[in-house]
């Protein structure tokens, strides 16, 4: 296995690291691209991108992790293209780098907002053969609040944190009090999207519930391999149960989609046992997708 660092993109402003198998990669296999999770740089939460890239390279996959513009080791863009669009364009540029090395199809791996971007890319680029969507979109709907907060309500420590002022609820409430002059909500996004709630975080424009359902269903219908991985006790899993599962029912039955809910972990797979499981699940899925792809 060998790794090399590079600058790529139109302005040579994006940083990437390519992981090559020890022997020349089997180019009939899809290459794997890792997308940034939130504000964390390209090594991924708890360095899991590095670990998984090296594991997949040992399996013969050509891999690349990189930083979106302005994140990690990549320079900010000079234009005003919104993140939802630039992330797609930059991921496709990363795919182009690997395509220049002979890759013909791709698997995308993204955690949290990385899964969000992976889904957008998969819809727009027919070279994508599969996407591992780890803890993807959280679209609040009926029943979500009860699901998300039931553990906290039953946990005495949550109440102690609340009384002691250490609860994340206080931070959330403070964030809702937008300073004078700032809009209370983000402007409407592109067609088919809903405005995101006001927070002190980077604004993200999330698709509506019907839109995300449609996106996932269209990928499943196209035969794109889908691997959903969740923290079993986390709120994102609720999204799977009430929204996404039914959209990919056929793909689940055909084996082109799968889901794994990992118990006793958080959103970024901090316990190492959860990381081990995540790596094994995605590795096995990548093998299966590669095995299904026609050679050449």
């Amino acid at each position, binding site marked *: 296995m060998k790794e090399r660092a590079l600058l790529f993109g139109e302005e040579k402003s994006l940083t990437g690291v390519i992981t090559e198998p020890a022997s020349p990669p089997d180019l009939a296999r899809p290459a794997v691209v890792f997308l940034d999770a939130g504000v*964390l740089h390209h090594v991924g939460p708890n360095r899991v991108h590095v670990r998984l890239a090296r594991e997949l390279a040992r399996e013969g996959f050509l891999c690349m992790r990189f930083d979106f513009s302005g994140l990690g080791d990549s320079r900010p863009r000079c234009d005003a293209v919104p993140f939802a669009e630039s992330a797609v364009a930059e991921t496709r540029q990363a795919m182009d780098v690997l395509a220049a090395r002979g890759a013909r199809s791709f698997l995308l791996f993204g955690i949290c907002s990385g899964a969000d971007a992976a889904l957008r890319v998969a819809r727009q680029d027919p070279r994508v053969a599969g996407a591992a969507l780890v803890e993807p979109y959280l679209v609040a709907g009926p029943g979500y609040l009860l699901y998300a907060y039931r553990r906290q309500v039953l946990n005495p420590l949550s109440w102690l944190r609340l009384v002691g002022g250490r609860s994340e609820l206080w931070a959330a409430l403070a964030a809702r009090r937008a300073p004078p002059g700032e809009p209370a909500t983000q402007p409407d996004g592109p067609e088919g999207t809903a405005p995101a709630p006001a927070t002190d975080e980077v604004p993200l424009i999330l698709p509506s519930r019907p839109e995300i359902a449609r996106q996932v269903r269209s990928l499943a219908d196209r035969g794109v391999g889908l691997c959903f991985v969740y923290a079993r006790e986390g709120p994102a899993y609720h999204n799977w149960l009430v929204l996404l599962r039914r959209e990919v029912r056929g793909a689940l039955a055909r084996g082109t989609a799968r889901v794994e809910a990992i118990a006793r*972990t958080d959103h*970024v797979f901090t*316990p190492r*046992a959860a990381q081990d499981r995540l790596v094994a699940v995605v590795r096995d899925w990548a093998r299966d997708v590669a095995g299904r792809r026609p050679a050449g």
Partner: protein
Amino acid sequence: MKPFFFGDSRRPLFGVLHPPRGSSRRPGVVICPPFGQESLRAHRSLRELATRLADAGFPALRFDYGGSGDSAGEPEEARLEGWVGDVSAAVEEMRESTGESRVTLVGLRLGGAVAALGARIVGGAEMLVLWEPVVDGATHLAELRRAHAEWVRDHAPGAKVAPDEVLGFTLPAGLVADIDGLRLDQIEPVPARRTLVVTSGEAGTRLWEGRPGVEQRVVPPAPVWLHAEGMSRALVPGALIEAVVAWVEGASA
């Protein structure tokens, strides 16, 4: 920014070089990161520091220790001595890049200790900046374990936790032993012509107090390096970074 691998080709280290603005011949700055979860949370701050230093005419090199970040190696093999050797390789790389033998070392948290130990083996640093350094290794280990226990309790009760993991990262027994025996205050002599110990609170500010060429500075507010509330947030203590850049500029004049 120029990302690259350097050092021993059998165990290459990942680095990002920030070339200086203009054609100054100022000493290069090698930046030593913290360990584990702190290294992820500090990434943005260290990038910002390197960018500001480069803007001020100082070439700056960020890098990952072996077995961490993008560098080769397994986390299970991590030892303090190996990381100090990695600092030496980074200094060598910087000297080759600038053609200038003088070098400044900056280290954050455990990276502060690694920078100080590294400064000794590279024959002394021009300047040494210890940012919120880990002074007493045993105390740092206790802090890490306490933060890990709190995290498990609050976020994944009942999670199976191996004895050699802390906040998502492997903390192997050899490294534990190394950190446990670490006492930065006992290093003699101070391995730099000029040293700045900069913290955001009172703890650690008396390190090497009264020794020649050593200054202490406190620049609040304190960033959150370990608490769960800091997860997913980029930490950039701007005032402290400005203070470090200003000090390096002043000390090199």
